[in-house]
């Protein structure tokens, strides 16, 4: 089963089991993970599901498209090299992802 480990800005970790095909954002929201707002529900319009992906996990993820790249310039906490919008990250079977949520999303 895919698992996402969410670390918040204070360092608290929450492990959430997801379903293959769901996005990291959906997995977080359904389980009430704080730190993911996702106002637009995943339509790449709001940039409030920003996460930092642990470096060694980046290669497991689909490459970033232009729209996501541009939206990341509008995140509440400035983007880093390992920034992604979690609505664009789909879980695959047995993937294990480590992400950190920013201090604020809005």
């Amino acid at each position, binding site marked *: 089963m895919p698992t996402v480990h969410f670390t918040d800005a204070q360092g608290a970790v929450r492990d959430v089991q997801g379903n293959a095909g*769901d996005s990291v954002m*959906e997995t977080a*929201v*359904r*389980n*009430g993970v*704080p730190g993911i*707002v996702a*106002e*637009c*529900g995943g*339509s*790449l*319009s*709001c*940039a409030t599901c920003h996460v930092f992906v642990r470096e060694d996990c980046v290669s497991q993820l689909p490459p970033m498209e232009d*729209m996501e790249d*541009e*939206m990341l*310039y*509008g995140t509440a906490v400035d983007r880093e090299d390992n920034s992604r919008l979690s609505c664009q990250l789909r879980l695959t079977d047995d993937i294990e992802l480590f992400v950190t949520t920013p201090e604020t999303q*809005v």
Partner: protein
Amino acid sequence: MGTHAAAQPTSVTAGAQTLPTRTGLLIIGASQSGVQLAVSLRALGFDEHITLLGDEDHRPYQRPALSKEFLQGTVESESLIFRSNEYWAEHNVELVKGEYIVRIDKEADGSGVAHASSGREFPFKRLALTVGARARKLDIDGGDLDGVLYLRNADDALALKARVGNATDVVVIGGGFIGLEAASSLHKMGRNVTVLEFGPRLVGRAVGEETAEYFLQAHRARGLDIRLNTSAARFTANDAAGENQNSVAAVELQDGTVLPAQIVLIGIGVIPNTQLAEQLGLAVDNGVVVDRFALASDGTTVAVGDVANMPNPVPGSEPGERIRLESVNNAIEHAKVAAYSLTGRREEYAGIPWFWSNQADLKLQIAGLCNGYDRTVLRRDEERGKFSVLYYRQGRIIAADCVNAPLDFMAVKNALAKGRNIPADAAEDTATPLKTITTDS
């Protein structure tokens, strides 16, 4: 007001179900604003039992995808569900589905009993109305034929989806967000789509002239037949005797033109659901009138989201100016205001209103409210398909409509949130990123 000692509801057993005799907060309306209110209250430490009641037979779900991804079949209904059942159970929020409240008896202290059409009663200490709005009906001949549809909730979307397979021609009435989103989806699904707009331009209320014109040209270029200043006179069924006699077959326009249509989708705006507020004697004027803490005129009931008529939350707006906003963003932000209010920590609404609408490959993002602008700056990059209009009032930026231009949208949204400006003259150079010319005053 203040937080009370942890009060677990005392319970009685009714049939197989255990019901609280008196919930701490009854939230009527289980859509975006109702869900957000419950979630925000728990985040703020509100520890009373919450009942989240909706009249649909679905778990609370997100609506925006209904006219887009859900209709096109690219997302499953399960992924529209806001929160897992486990989440609600863990957070002591009781979900009630399929109950329609018809009357409320309320005491001066804010407590009372809500009566459902089923006969069930829901006693509460405090009440929240997050009842949203309903589709405005088009009352013309043939309006009750099968295939004349509206799109407001999941059942509407399922009904529409079920008919698409047998349809070749669709007429969409209303060139607003819902109409254009659904029209784009149906066109993408291979249907001939005609959009009838009664007014002289598209998305009349929500965007400015330049944006409306851009959308008109863009949609026509993508294959939608859009007719402005046009209205339907009546809907007609098949003349031939047969099983389709009750199904819509055509739309007859005021000028006599007849357009074939196996589906007519009507999206001509919404009406706030103020019936319960009126029955309660609350002040109502294009929505439930609330103060800046989301409190209705009785001082105890909160009203949130599409149904609420509130003081304009935009910094710098005219004193006394009121507004009713229909948007996901407002449902969320206004619910937060109400949550602070209910927990005795009144905070003013400080969010910048924003909206989005995805239509075909056109991603519209609107930041701020453009009412009362005196200057616009157009930023258009034909080659990259980007288009933005910035709105100014007395030299200050107040809003922007951005199409496929997230950088512009984000720059304006952030500037507005921080009270900063983007000087109009500098913004005219399309090659300059707005972020780099944002100033402190």
